[in-house]
């Protein structure tokens, strides 16, 4: 009986020739990640441990990104706690405001995540790095504490669902539509405890940014991780961003999958998840009534990368957002911000009536920088539309791609670029 990509990586990290689904293993970690919400709890837990410091100061990444620049005094205290811990333990990869970005966009860009790695992060969207052929998964603060101290974590080896990707997407269909389509199909617990393994010739038609977006939202289907095979494009990305050596794992021919699905990219349409679950998906063609919106957010660990700012700019160029609309654009990292500036994208956003923010997770989780009032509706390129996620419990979030978000900002209702005759 063969192993999946995920199982092979976990076996290697546990020093075993073979693992099977359900087996409990202890794996060596290549990277342990935390942010300004989860790290303070982890630091407090680590202080209870009989250890003198971290297992490896180069293999820990601390990225204050949720409530920075500090949104209030309590957040400032949390950030100070993380900063002082980083200084005390000489953490190499601590990213201060000015260097930071949204963690899951930042770490691959900084070359800290490569194929074959085993990564845990005290943030549920840590599954993003599967786009590069790494095993990465979200954990809580106590796991982060134990990981920082010991360099190890326990895992139950997951079974897998295989998604065979074929075809080529239409120009206004991107990674977000692919993953929303999948979540709509299998549900928010459709991949509970499992790995989501994406394979097939259609992957060649997905950019790296698309793959990051798809792997990022594996957790929204309950998945333990999402993972892609390493192809020439992924290798090119790693060579461009990282000096670390990487290891490519491929699934065995006779690997066992609980379920298999084929996703034909050419059949996908812009897809929107209605309140209050990411599985409540509708294609743009299925929306027959006008849904007026108050705010649009383009950014986050899901959709704040350069590809998506370019798509949004293409839609917003020489147009203006609807009267009364608030459109918030958040480049995910400083490097993306700078590149967007050099390409003239920020000018397009500002001339269209949008605002451009420093990198932050702020509005995605209702922290700051775009909190919703009672009764307000938002089209957001973020990843969750739970009750109260972005503000008042009677506000509504529609999850969509950057193309749909930008088009909706212009018309003032849920729209796609097709309606703008693009």
């Amino acid at each position, binding site marked *: 009986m063969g192993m999946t990509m995920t199982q092979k990586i976990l076996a290697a990290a546990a020093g075993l020739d073979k693992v099977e689904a359900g087996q*409990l293993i202890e794996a060596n970690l290549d990277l342990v990640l935390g942010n300004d*919400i*989860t790290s*303070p*709890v982890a630091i*407090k*837990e680590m202080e*209870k*441990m*009989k250890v003198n410091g971290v297992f490896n100061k180069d293999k820990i990444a601390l990225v204050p990104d*949720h*409530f920075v620049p500090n*949104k*209030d005094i*309590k*957040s400032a205290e*949390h950030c100070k706690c993380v900063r002082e811990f980083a200084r005390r333990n000489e953490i190499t990869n601590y990213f201060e405001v000015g260097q930071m970005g949204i963690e899951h966009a930042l770490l691959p860009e900084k070359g800290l995540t490569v194929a074959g790695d085993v990564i845990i*992060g*005290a*943030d*549920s969207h*840590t599954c993003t790095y599967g786009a590069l052929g790494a095993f990465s998964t*979200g*954990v*809580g*603060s*106590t*796991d982060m*504490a*134990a990981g920082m*101290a*010991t360099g190890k974590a*326990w895992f139950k080896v997951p079974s897998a669902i295989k998604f065979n990707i074929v075809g080529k997407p239409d120009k206004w269909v991107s990674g977000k539509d692919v993953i929303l389509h999948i979540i709509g199909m299998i549900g*928010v*617990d459709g991949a*509970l*405890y499992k790995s989501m393994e994406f394979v097939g010739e259609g992957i060649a038609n997905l950019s790296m940014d698309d793959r990051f977006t798809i792997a990022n939202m594996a*957790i929204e289907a*309950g998945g*333990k991780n999402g993972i892609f095979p390493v192809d020439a494009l992924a290798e090119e990305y790693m060579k461009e961003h990282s000096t670390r050596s990487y290891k490519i794992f491929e699934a065995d021919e006779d690997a066992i999958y609980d379920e298999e699905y084929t996703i034909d990219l050419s059949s996908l349409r812009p897809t929107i998840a209605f309140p209050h*679950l990411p599985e409540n998906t509708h294609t743009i063609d299925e929306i027959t009534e006008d849904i007026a919106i108050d705010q649009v957010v383009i950014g986050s660990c899901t959709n704040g990368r350069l590809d998506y700012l370019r798509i949004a700019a293409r839609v917003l160029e020489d147009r203006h957002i609807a009267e009364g609309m608030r459109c918030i654009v958040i480049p995910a990292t400083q490097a993306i911000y700078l590149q967007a500036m050099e390409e003239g994208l920020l000018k397009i956003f500002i001339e269209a009536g949008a605002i451009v923010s420093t990198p932050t997770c702020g509005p995605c*989780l*209702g*922290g700051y920088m775009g*909190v919703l009032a009672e009764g307000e509706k938002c089209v957001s390129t973020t990843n*969750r539309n*739970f*009750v*109260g*996620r972005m503000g008042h*419990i009677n506000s509504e979030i529609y999850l969509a791609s950057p193309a749909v978000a930008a088009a909706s900002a212009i018309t003032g209702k849920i729209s796609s670029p097709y309606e703008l005759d693009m």
Partner: protein
Amino acid sequence: MNAKGIVFKYGDNVDTDVIIPARYLNSSDPAELATHCMEDIDKEFVKKVQKGDIIVAEKNFGCGSSREHAPIAIKAAGVSCVIAETFARIFYRNAINIGLPIIECAEASKGIDAGDEVEVDFDSGMIYNRTKGTEFKGQPFPEFMQRIIAEGGLIPYINSQK
């Protein structure tokens, strides 16, 4: 070890944003987090919950964010056990790691209503509905996790290994 208390009942996909909304995550103090526990799904919860009470839910309890603040808030509010048909995986891990007892049991999830008095025997995995006079067998933890829980969470477990 046993838990006994009155049940608060919820449905599918109770996410960590309703268990502890992110607007309160500028704090990591368990007592403070507890005062907002379940606020966005049940405003009455913090007013009514008594030490030892039990949460019963349906599928995918604790989905969403990895915030450990969610099981911390539930535990600090006095809840002695969460029973659900299934748990989201990060919540499941976090609950074990901080020593909040949880049990997966689809039948109990269906056969217990809000306000029922329920008793749980963690050693046997048995769940007794004292109000209705029914009983259910919950999914026991693997031995490895039982050791973590017996030590009171992951950190004491690791300390005990040294």
